């Protein structure tokens, strides 16, 4: 399924990430996945939360720069070769993955991954056909 990921600009200094998590904690926003890409000066925090719109508004109120991006969340069998099957299907469909990361925890023997691609609808269709 496709959902909205929040990306937040973070300067590389002590306490920046904690400011975000504190804000989300105080407002009872549940984080489901988290990933950080960084350079020497700054990082991009990517978040999947249960209430993206509310969380984005909250962060903006506190002067964070937030961008909402549609991403695809897909189940991956939590066993050897599970991820490989999914990636094989994506490769066969000639879809470029810009980046991906895993969702915290697992349900019913399935792990979940988040994929950022140019055309999330198309990836969603490909992964649905896999019937995982």
């Amino acid at each position: 399924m496709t959902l909205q990921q929040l990306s937040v600009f973070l300067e590389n200094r002590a306490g920046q990430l904690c400011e975000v998590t504190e804000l989300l904690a105080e407002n009872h926003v549940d984080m489901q996945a988290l990933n950080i890409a960084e350079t020497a000066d700054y990082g991009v925090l990517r978040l999947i939360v249960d209430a993206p719109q509310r969380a984005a508004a909250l962060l903006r109120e506190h002067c964070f720069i937030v961008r909402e991006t549609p991403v695809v969340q897909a189940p991956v069998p939590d066993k050897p070769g599970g991820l490989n099957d999914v990636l094989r299907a994506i490769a066969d469909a000639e879809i470029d993955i810009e980046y991906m990361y895993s969702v915290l925890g697992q349900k019913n023997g399935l792990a979940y991954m988040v994929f950022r691609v140019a055309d999330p609808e198309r990836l969603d269709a490909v992964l649905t056909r896999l019937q995982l």
Partner: protein
Amino acid sequence: MQRYYQSEIETASREQLLAWQNERLVKQVRHVWDKVPYYRKKMEEKGVSPEDIRGVEDLHKLPFLSKDDLRDAYPYGLLAAPLRDCVRIQSTSGTTGRRVVAFYTQHDVDLWEECCARAIVAAGGTEEDVCHVCYGYGLFTGGPGLNGGSHKVGCLTLPMSSGNTDRQLQFMVDLSSTILCCTPSYAAYLAESIHERGLRDKIKLKAGIFGAEAWSEEMRRDIERSLGIKAYDIYGLTETSGPGVAFECCEQAGMHINEDHFIAEIIDPDTGEVLPEGSKGELVFTSITKEAFPLLRYRTRDICVLSRKPCSCGRTHVKMSKPMGRSDDMLIVKGVNVFPSQIETVLLEQGYQANYQIVVDRVNSSDTLEVMVEMTAENFSDSLGRITEMEKGLVSALKAMLGIYARVRLVAPKTITRSEGKAVRVIDKRKI
């Protein structure tokens, strides 16, 4: 040892100097009135005509010229000679991105090079010397000016230009350079490199002519000790020709202004009032011998003091102190003029907000320039690749505007102090 390049001029009596200035000023004012509509308009606005200027004592009646005038008149508006008589341009940065272009006839180039030759001779240069010029060549006046001066003196001239330290040191050792011309910070850097490589006993330097940026007496002593040389200051600006407007003699206390070519005044930067000798104020130059690009009462924005006390070197020309600061916000980084407004122009063009901070520092004797910019929602992306692309775009746009590398640091919004009264745009950590 030859003490002067042009002794009759450099040691002329004050009366003689004044007579030259009077005659040349009157002629120059008439020349620009006839040839440059921009000047005529400025003079008319102030109600002055050439008849009112009978000598140096009337100089204060003329309107000032500022960097803004040079920008408004770009490129040909202040040109006072036919283009076919011009043989050269040099250029420096303007306040908001438009560059200042100065024109030279062959006569102007010759006079400029003579001024530089005076500086080289004052530093002990003769035709026996090997003059190692590592100021930048090109639009920047440093390289071409000292290069020309060195030719006039008859030194063997090494047109090294800036950078490539390995090559600099190789030539310095193999060709026995005796006079080094560069920015003081580059001299300090070369001195360190010479020591690191154990070349101290292999170099033959005896003097250095260092300018284009601020340096302290302490830095002078460090360089002198480290290289075993005498280090001399030189002053100039592209608008008035380039280096050689003023230079230090053996006294190493103030720079003699070439008064046969330039009339110097010190004014109150706020009121424009001319201040008496010995007062600290803004330096203003009138070029009385230039043909193509003569500037009348050009405000340098450099704050300094003039002194006509007799000098033990025998030169009679007035001395200026090292510039003690600026009456505008211009920075000199790696010898290059940088205006915060130029950086602002680039930021706005690149879609960033005009909220920024410039941090200048000196690391290992070399100036560093960092621009802190707040990230904006428009420029932000979930993709690190796209952000770094934008960042690279900003770095190259700054390089194109300033001519030097500026490190960009993207910071979170609202982290740069908003203006409370006066915004802190520049943090200069250099200890000069």
